């Protein structure tokens, strides 16, 4: 049985993908913000698929200290129960903020949660993914287009705009996937970014102010059910030979921003290593 880890798996796209993958016979390890959310997610999955094999871990992945604890628990679990193999890591966790807010490290929260958390969790689980010749999938967004990384002020402290911060973090997702492919494709690892499209989830209603809340509540009415994007994740996991592309929408390869260059991907990779206090090269050898 292949093991898949999904972050942000207690609602929306993450939960739907978790359910679908259990139906396909995967063992799904979910990660959620709180224990209560996790228990509710398990209940929903079991109700719709009584045969599902799933466990959930909880933690606030935006805080690096919490992420390290969760990563440690996941490592131990994978080693003890999954033969040390992780077939796919779906870095789906993400959020929206209305204001400039920081993590305990003083990092802007959207950057920390939407990008750094994925960067660091992938690092910690890399040996397990490598052992399974697995896949890493990020939840991106089409909104990554038409924006550049603001290298001089990557936390966007000057003139913070919540939407800009969100878009930039989604550009980071695809740059990270590209950097992983460039470095580790020969190690047998493939990385992807999924554009879920506009989906009816509560992303804009969690930890946001009134304005973002109202706008999102109106906007999400146009959105599709999370079942639609979930298919793309299933497709990327189920294809026997790893698909060649980088960016997928509705199970098809899509064009992505011109900003997704080698130079930007490397620069973000180095910056992220510094901000997380890690070095991928300490853990893996590029083949």
């Amino acid at each position, binding site marked *: 049985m292949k093991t898949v880890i999904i972050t942000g798996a207690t609602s929306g796209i993450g939960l739907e993908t978790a359910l679908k993958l259990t139906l396909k016979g995967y063992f799904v390890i979910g990660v959620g913000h709180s224990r209560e959310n996790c228990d509710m997610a398990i209940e929903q999955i079991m109700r719709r698929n009584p045969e599902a094999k799933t466990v959930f871990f909880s933690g606030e992945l935006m805080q690096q200290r919490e992420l390290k604890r969760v990563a440690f628990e996941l490592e131990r679990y994978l080693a003890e129960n999954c033969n040390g193999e992780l077939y796919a890591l779906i870095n789906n966790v993400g959020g929206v903020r209305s*204001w400039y*807010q920081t*993590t305990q490290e003083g990092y802007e929260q959207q950057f920390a949660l939407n990008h750094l958390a994925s960067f660091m969790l992938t690092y910690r689980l890399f040996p397990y993914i490598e052992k399974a010749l697995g896949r890493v999938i990020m939840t991106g967004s089409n909104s990554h287009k038409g924006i550049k990384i603001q290298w001089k002020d990557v936390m966007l402290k000057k003139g913070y705009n919540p939407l800009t911060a969100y878009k930039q973090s989604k550009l980071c997702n695809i740059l990270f996937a590209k950097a992983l492919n460039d470095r580790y494709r020969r190690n047998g690892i493939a990385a992807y970014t999924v554009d879920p499209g506009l989906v009816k989830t509560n992303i804009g209603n969690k930890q946001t*102010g*009134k304005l973002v809340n109202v706008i999102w509540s109106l906007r999400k009415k146009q959105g599709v059910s999370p079942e639609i994007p979930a298919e793309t994740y299933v497709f990327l996991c189920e294809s026997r030979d790893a698909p060649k592309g980088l960016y997928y929408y509705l199970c098809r390869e899509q064009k992505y921003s011109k900003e997704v260059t080698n130079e930007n991907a490397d620069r973000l990779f180095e910056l992220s290593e510094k*901000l997380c206090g890690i070095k991928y090269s300490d853990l893996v050898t590029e083949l």
Partner: protein
Amino acid sequence: MNVMITGASGGLGRALAAECAGRGYNLFLTDINEQGLRCLQSGLERQYGVCVTARKCDLTDDESVDEMLSVIDRNGIEFDMLLNIAGMDFEGGFLDRERESVVKIVSLNVEATLRITHAILKRRRAGREFSLVFVSSLASLYPMPLKATYAASKRFLSDFALAIGQELKSQNVKVLTLCPGGLPTTQEAISGIAAQGFWGEMTTNKLETVASRTIERALKGKRMYIPGTVNRTLSLCGKLLPRSFIAAIIYKRWIGAQSKWLSLESKT
């Protein structure tokens, strides 16, 4: 430039620490939350490559402060700036709160601030300008029913800041009082802002702007910084209207907002 920041691991403290680190200042951070301090220290070092020292300290405890001061003295650290951020409030009316917690507000916001201010002023770098910042509040401008102790403690700070600023002017010490409205620092603060409805959003300040302008103004030698046009207008009203009248208005406003906020909190 050596800067001490108290209450550094809270939302405003972190934002000001990042602002100072971005300017390349050396930081001495203190807070009662050691874990938070460690995270912030490594975050600032990684992001800005500046020299950060962090030490846990309970500013309400003389012994704890003395221990920290002995470390400072052993290393011969002298300061150019002190940002007094440490402060607290508990929600609920005066009699709805525990006796200890009401007193604790004053011992941290007032007593502890005096304790550390005195100690660091004594350790300021000789022959240089020194900047001192007190975080007061929009609440300090009015008598505030249901936030009576907090508002009065902040009033103490703004009056004290103005007076000590005059007193130490000739010794090259510049004193700034920051009076922010709501700051979206924590989930709790954000739900507090939401519970106040329209006026909550209107009086809320942007954290990153407040942080950068506070340092800017402290260096320029300004005495008072009230962020936001709405807040400045409200503060003017506070000066023009009779204080008992203001207290009555605020009570009406807060009694609704607070019960809404408390019910929101109990739900989450």
